[in-house]
């Protein structure tokens, strides 16, 4: 539970960083940190906890975006399930599969966002000149995936270590008799 809360906090911090970076550069030149945090959550957390974290991160993105409320959350939950599927087939602790999954998920994210917009807003066209930006963002997201994965593992290890130490301290306070 503590891990899930920590992941929500870290992921939302990632969304804030993404918003600031999008302000300084362009949203297309910033890796999708919210998506990567959801990906990492799928790898280091349990299925139920991870799904709730992915949903929360999606809602966080909805708050700082002009999308419909729940649109990113919807997409993140589906992506979470996809990552769990990939994880059962590939070793996602390795560099290349992480990059590949980050790249593919970024493209899937675009397709799902477009699809949901088409369904709910009925006005969503993608211009040809957007494809380049889309691919650039997918590449950047893929390239950033191993670093986020590393951070995820380090955070989880640190949290479980802290938890173990806390339990040990509680144990020593028990009366002997």
């Amino acid at each position, binding site marked *: 539970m503590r891990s899930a809360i920590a992941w929500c906090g870290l992921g939302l911090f990632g969304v804030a960083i993404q918003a*600031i970076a999008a*302000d300084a550069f362009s949203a*297309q030149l910033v890796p999708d940190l919210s998506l990567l945090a959801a990906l990492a959550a799928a790898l280091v957390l349990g299925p*139920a906890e991870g799904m709730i974290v992915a949903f929360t991160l999606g809602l966080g*993105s909805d*708050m700082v975006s002009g999308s*419909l*409320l729940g649109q990113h*959350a919807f997409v993140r939950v589906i992506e979470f399930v996809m990552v769990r599927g990939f994880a059962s087939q590939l070793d996602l602790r390795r560099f290349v599969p992480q990059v590949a999954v980050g790249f593919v998920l970024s493209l899937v994210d675009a397709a799902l966002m477009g699809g949901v917009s088409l369904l709910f807003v009925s006005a969503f*066209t993608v211009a040809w000149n957007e494809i380049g930006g889309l691919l650039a963002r997918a590449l950047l997201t893929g390239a950033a995936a191993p670093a986020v994965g590393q951070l995820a593992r380090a955070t989880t290890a640190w949290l479980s270590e802290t938890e173990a130490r806390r339990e040990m301290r509680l144990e020593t306070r028990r009366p002997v008799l």
Partner: protein
Amino acid sequence: MNDFLRTIRLPLLFAGLLLLTLIFMLGDREPAPGEEAPWLQSVMLEITGPIQSLFTRPAEWLGEVWTGYIALVDVNQENERLLEQLALLEEENLQYREALVASGHLARIARMRVDFEVPLLPSQVVGQDVSPWFRSVLLDRGRDEAVRSGMPVVSAGGLVGLVTATSPNASRAMMMLDRRSAVDAIVQRSRARGIVRGTGSGEIEFIFMVRGDDVREGDEIITSGVSGVYPKGLRIGVVTGVQTERSEILHTAEVRPAVDFGRLEQVFVMLERGPTLDLLFGADGDQHAPPSASEPEAGG
């Protein structure tokens, strides 16, 4: 029984979360007139506004230092050129005024200005959209300063967009560049009418019905004021090219926006909403997504 529940726990959670997002999206797509913005969104706007402002202000300050002190190369030459240009424009302006006075229009225009003058609330852009699929900005003024959904946002250059969500101290505005945006517009020279749509890729286009050669390169596009969402006469942009291959009836013109959306810092919220939006949102109420986001100003 416990085993069964444990087995279906994950599919249930998955379905439950998806259902929840669908409910959110449906609620956001079809707002009920006069309702407040969703409380969760209001809270998040309140939180993200100051945080983003905290991060963007130092970046802006650094940018100002750069442009104001370090990058002052060739300013003297540019200054001379601008002064020359200003003198020419002043002269031109004087001639127009003379022509208007001569035709008796000036007095009428002065009366109209009083009738249509709208209070403008200055506001800072404190954040951009995180998603490349949407084009919106976060503003540092909200409901406490009488900002409501559906109010037009302008800058010194021209039309920026429309307020779509508000919290007490922050608001979100959908820019004209957003692919869901549609503004009823006219060509200033020929009065040809059409719709300016955001393409989503940082550009806008003017879709119009062909009636001869009534849209040309260099033409100024302004808001038509039809349907009462945006006031008439706000600058939108300049035509940079006309495409004729779209269809025989409808043509598309590429438009260079009058506003530099990449350097948007200070904007003004027009503290008045058109009658159409009052009907849709309720006179005092507020909502998240305006209907004009998906419809061309209700046809206007």
